[in-house]
Structures are given as C-alpha cells and as structure tokens.
C-alpha cells in the first residue's frame, strides 16, 4: 500500500507499516482543476482511536495510481502539494468525486448566489481535509484563504494571558472560517483547531479579492453572503454574551 512508514500519532515509538492501514474510502476527489491528487482516509489498525491519513496519488495518464506520499494532513502539507499543480485534461478527471462547483453549491451561506456566479468561484476553490487536532490557522497569524466548512467540527479558541485558551465557538458544516483573510488584514482573530475530521472548501483570498474588484456583480453577491454569515455569527455571539442561563431560569 505504501512505500513509506509512518509514526503512529498515538504512540511515537510505533511505526505503522503497510499492513496496518485500512482504507476508509476516498473522502473526496481533489478537484482543483490543476491538481490531480486524491486524498484518501486511512485508519491505523494499531490504535483504538482513528487517525486520518491522507494518501495522495498522482493519476498518471495510464490511470494507475502511483502513491506519492502519505502524510497526516496539515496545512503545510496541502500547501506543498497544491503549490505543485499539474495539468490535467478532462478525461483524466475522476468522475466519481464531486466537483468544486457541486461542493460549493452545498454551502448554505452561498445559497443566494445563482449558479452562473457560483461558477466563477469554482476555479479558485480547493477542497481540503483535516483530521482531528490539526490546527488550521493560529490567532494573530496571517492566512491567505477563507474556508467554508463542508462537514466536521472546528473549534475557535482565543488566548488571553494567564488564562487557559478560551474556546469561544465551534463551527460546523455550512459555516465560515478565516473571514479576515478576505475582509480584513488577513490576520486571524482566533486559532482554529479541528475537533472532528473535517472537509473544507478554501478560496484563495488574493484571487478572490481581485475577482470581486473586477467583477462587481459577483463581488457584491459574494460580499452579501459574507455579511449575512457574519450577522448570524454576531447574533450568536450576542446570545452567548447575554448569558441566558445565568439567572434562575423558567421551566
């Protein structure tokens, strides 16, 4: 299955060999039009808990998968992979995996975008997966992508000196992360840690901003979706602030 051995994240002195990985099936096709890598979820049979590894396979012209590497998914890893796009023609594109457009269409906060406008976002969209405990971005760090969660759970924590990191919110399917990348100065206002294995659609901030500046129709529609998402986030934050359960509550 693999030419590489991996460390088991649970037990650092265990090496996981090929016989100890079990495929849980492909999560999604990697559908950036320029890359052909296909992540697949594998399970370590050594541990009671599940760990997610991603097998990246380059689809050659003969369509036999050649394993390039297996790595526990990190942002850096995906960047490393994504930064080496390869050309693909249509007949090499896997038909089983959902397209960027189809996955974008499942994001509820983009519901108001008509299909032809959504299609303009598809080229700058990439699908990413992250296992539990992966840190997507850190508070205060720069991030150049905005994420829409397809499924899974991501926790947002903020750090106050002399306190434990405070978990302020968990974000799930259909919701927005790293909005500062496109709305503000790209500095993240919280640290995002994956709780449940998650899939995202990431939109690169720079091309997205350029698109919105150049094409005001998509720009306005997209910003309206962002504003709507943020207004709902604001309301949720206010409800948390109200501390509704603090006083004696009616039954």
């Amino acid at each position, binding site marked *: 299955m693999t030419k590489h051995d991996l460390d088991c994240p649970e037990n650092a002195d265990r090496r996981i060999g090929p016989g100890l990985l079990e495929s849980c099936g492909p999560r999604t096709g990697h559908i950036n039009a320029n890359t052909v890598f296909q992540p697949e979820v594998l399970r370590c049979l050594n541990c009671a808990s599940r760990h997610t590894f991603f097998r990246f396979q380059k689809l050659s012209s003969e369509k036999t998968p050649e394993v390039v590497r297996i790595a526990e998914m990190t942002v850096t890893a995906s960047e490393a992979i994504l930064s080496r796009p390869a050309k693909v023609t249509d007949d090499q594109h896997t038909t089983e995996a959902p397209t960027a457009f189809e996955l974008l269409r499942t994001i509820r906060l983009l519901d108001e975008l008509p299909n032809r406008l959504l299609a303009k976002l598809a080229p700058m969209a990439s699908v990413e997966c992250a296992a539990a405990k992966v840190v997507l971005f850190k508070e205060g760090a720069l991030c150049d992508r905005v994420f829409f969660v397809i499924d899974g759970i991501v926790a947002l924590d903020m750090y106050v000196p002399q306190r434990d990191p405070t978990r302020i919110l968990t974000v799930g399917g259909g919701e927005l992360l790293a909005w500062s990348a496109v709305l503000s100065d790209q500095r993240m206002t919280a640290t995002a840690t994956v709780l449940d294995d998650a899939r995202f659609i990431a939109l690169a901030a720079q091309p997205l901003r350029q698109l919105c500046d150049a094409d005001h129709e998509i720009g306005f529609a997209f910003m309206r979706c962002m504003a709507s998402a943020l*207004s*709902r986030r*604001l*309301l949720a934050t206010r409800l948390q602030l109200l501390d509704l359960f603090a*006083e*004696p509550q*009616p039954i």
Partner: protein
Amino acid sequence: MTDMERPADGHSSAFLPTAKLQTLIDHLIDDGFQVVGPTVDQGAIIYDEIRSIQDLPRGWTDRQEPGRYRLERRNDDACFGFVVGPHSWKRFLFPPMAAVATADRVDAAWVMRTPTDDPPRYAFLGVRACELAAIDVQDRVFLRGPYVDPIYKKRREAMFIIAVNCTQAAATCFCTSMQTGPRCKSGFDLALTEIHDGFLVETGSEAGAALADRLPISSATQDQLEAAEAARRQAGDQITKTLDTTDIRNLLLGNLEHPRWEDVSRRCLSCTNCTMVCPTCFCSSVVEVADLTGDHVERRRQWDSCFNVDFSYMHGGIVRNDIRSRYRQWLTHKLASWHDQFGTSGCVGCGRCITWCPVGIDLTEEVAAIRGKPVVEITLTRGNTQDESPAARDGAAFPPEEGSGSCEA
C-alpha cells in the same frame, strides 16, 4: 336562583307603593335571605346588610366626576336616586378574603381539606343594569371556565336579585356605549323602577314572580307606566360619556407600543383603586396563613391587583416593572383580551374607575387618544405631533411584525 335567560316582563307591570317596599324586605328576611342593599357610610353610598327601607339612602344622590365623589341631598325622598358607589356586588360573590383550603399536620403528614363554607343566602336589593352585566361577566370567569370556583358558585346559586332601573346617570356613566344599560333587561328576579310614590315592578324569573305574588302590588296605571318610562329614559338621556368600542380588541392589542401608554403612566399612581372598585376585576392571590405552631395552615385567597408591583414577579425579576406596562395590562385586559378570554368585554360602563381614580384618569379618553392617533400616523407626523411624550418625539417603538427575522445591529 336567578334565571339569566328570561327577559323582563315589560308589559304587565305591577305597582308597589314606597312604604310597602318594607314588605319586600321583610319577606326576604323571613325566607332566610340576608338582604344587602345600598346605604350611606363614610360619605359614600355602599352595599351592606339592610333590614329596613330607612337604611336606604333616601333623599341622597351622588355627584361623580373623574377623581371626585360627593353625596348631596336631593329635594325628594327617593330610595334609589343615585348611581353606583365604590362597592360592587363582587364583594359578596367573590369575597375579598376567603379560605380556599386548609392543611393540618397530622403525624408528620399533611391532611388537606376544603374548609366549610357556609355563606348567607344573599338577596341583593338595588342592582343596576351595569351591575347585572358585571355579574354575568364574573359568571363567565368563575363558573364557565374549565375550573369552577366553589366559593363563587355557592353564593351565586343561592342569590336573589332585585334590580333597579336607573332614573338618572352620573357624569362618569357610559353603560350605553357598552350596551349594558341603563335598562335592566334580564338576569334578575325582580326589577324596580322608582317613580315619585312607589315602584313599577317587573318579574324576571319564577322565583321573582312567586315573591311578587306575596307583595301588596296592584296593576300599574297608564300614568304610572308613563312616569316609569320617562324616568328610565331620563337615565339614558343624561349619559354624556361615550366609549367607541369599534374593533377595540384589535385597536388596543395592535397598539401595545403607542406613546399614550407612556403618557398615562406619568399620571397613574398604580394605586389599584380602579381594580378594587371595578365590578369585574377578579385578580387575586392565595397566601399561606399559619398558626403559631405551624401545624395548621389556611390557604387564603385575597383580592390582588395587576397594578401591584410584585403581581408579575417571577424568580429573578418583575415582568411588568413599570407603571406603563401595568396600566397597559389593565386596560388591554379589560377592553381587549377579555374578549379573547371570555367572549365579552370586561367593562360594563359603570364609570367607577373614573370616579375613584385619585388623579381622574378616564379610560374612555385614553382609548380615544389611541384611536384618534394610531401609531402609523405618529410616524408620519413625527415632530409635528401634539403628543409631547418623549416616545413620540424620538420615534415610538412599533408593534412587531409577524415573523420578523433576527434583530438588526
């Protein structure tokens, strides 16, 4: 038991001379009733036990205005030449204090009992048309809901009513607007209309007819009938106050943020007078009254009022924490919600709340102000409105739209 369904027997009226009214009272007492009627006390005409027509406020009348009540001497000897005072008949049917249950500790367990309730059988002498309507309203509350109040029921079923048709009106009366008077139409055993030397007597039930048979009545003459008719008409003619009840339920419940509530709250003292004198108000509280040992507890229901600050207290806070919301509660309940709850208005137009309000708030004026300047109009004329309340100047909050989404930032 009064038969509420039988209409007044307007045709064959009988005549009873004034002096023979005593016979009526005597028969009732002999039959085991406690006769309750109007009498003068502490400068007002109230309802109390009477035994003689001399106990009645003969020759007295009342002058009523918003916030003012005075007795004055009449130039005749009329027995019922006045309108309504601070008492209503609810103080007998729905007593201000009553034990509803008891609990006694017996061997570390509690034994709950219903206390013996042995009220007198009341005969009400002098019930006005508006008061008949008020009794019917309270019947709906206490007898015709999913739960029946046994205390009210016991008194109500034993009651005998001698109604009196009003022959004059106070400045605060508006029964015509509420369609409750001034004519007594049903809900009584006997009805009297006073003329200069006696009473025209109508029967309204079999019990009333049976009692009338025992009275020294004669057939009324044409003159007597006409005098009675004129006297009754005078009552209607003297009414000056009106309340426009057109669609009043929607008017009030659709204007819950009207600036007028703020306006009236600056005058209202939240003193609860209006609810005490109102013949239909029924708010109460049950309190625990224990003896010194703590082993014998009485659950006592006593009159309460939505104007009391803690009436709406709920662990942690008071829901209606300002006079504005409490006045609004009272008025919208009385004139609007009552329709939803009991199928009738809660107001019978007796005017007591206007007379006995220490600052003279007149609910007919409050309604007129809301009706005359509904909220939409206020929006358009903001800045030009005659209404000086800050809410109107700054833009009143308007009734919420149905199904509105999240609040704006």
